């Protein structure tokens, strides 16, 4: 099916980008491995959709597609939570920085 080719292409592109970023030292080795595993898993699921069926059965979920959706949702929630807490910390750091800059300026005068 066309969608399979498309998804495989997208995942391959992701794989390629991860390696490229690793080469530019923007990605650590552990992160590279995690990403490669994720991309390869994605390709595996797209090329042989039936594998999800077996995994789903292990987890006690009826259909493979359902398992994929449940897992994706869980991971997305985690990622969003991490992002929110991280931005919050960043915001606080920026506030501290602006405060220090502002107070330093006035004491120097």
């Amino acid at each position: 099916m066309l969608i399979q080719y498309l998804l495989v292409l997208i995942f391959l592109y992701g794989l390629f980008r991860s390696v490229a970023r690793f080469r530019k030292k923007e990605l650590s080795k552990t992160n590279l491995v995690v990403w490669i595993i994720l991309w390869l898993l994605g390709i595996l699921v797209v090329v042989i959709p039936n594998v999800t069926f077996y995994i789903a059965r292990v987890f006690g979920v009826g259909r493979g597609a359902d398992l994929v959706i449940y897992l994706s949702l869980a991971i997305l929630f985690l990622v969003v939570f991490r992002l929110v807490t991280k931005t919050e910390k960043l915001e606080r750091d920026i506030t501290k920085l602006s405060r220090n800059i502002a107070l330093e300026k006035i004491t120097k005068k």
Partner: protein
Amino acid sequence: MVTIVKMLFVIVPAHNEEKNIGRVISGLFEHGYNNVVVVDDGSEDQTSEVARYAGARVITHPVNRGQGAALQTGQEYVLSQGGDVVVHFDGDGQFNPLDIAPAVELVRNGGYDAVLGSKLLDNRSKIPWTKRRIIIPLARFVNRLFTGVNLSDVHNGFRVLNRKALEKIEITNSGMAHNTEIVRKIKEHGLKFREHPVEVTYNEYGLGPRGGLQIVFDLLISKITK
């Protein structure tokens, strides 16, 4: 070591208030409050210049960080200057400088650590109907939920704090949720406080419903990330 002197500071947080800030500062000076600290919260207009010209000490955030952040910056400055009492006074001209003296009296000689302004304790303020009937009761409910303290007017920017309160209350909520945070910290540290009637003149409506939701969101996030 900072030597503590009997000195009152008025902290005026201001963001893009070039039209009002001059009037606010001269009003304060006219009533004998000479230590006016304007915290310009990254304004894009001439707020800093106008405030400096009017005679205030101006602390300028390089970027906009929110009213809570501006107040905390002012408080840290006052702590470093050794002031004994601080007044929070909005920069948009909605407060009346005449309300300061009786509130300060309560802190200096009445045994209170904190005095919180309320526009609902007398009938000098003309409050828009939707605010009186919908927004203020909602804010009161949220405040009670998060702090356990019942206040008549939660989001009132008029406050008088003594040095003890100043040292205990570190404002970490940069946005507008600092109102609730301050109340929570007053309770946490067992500070003696009371509400005090102040007059509020509305120039603009203030926070819309989105601002209100943002406050609840900020409060929840700060509960999680603490």
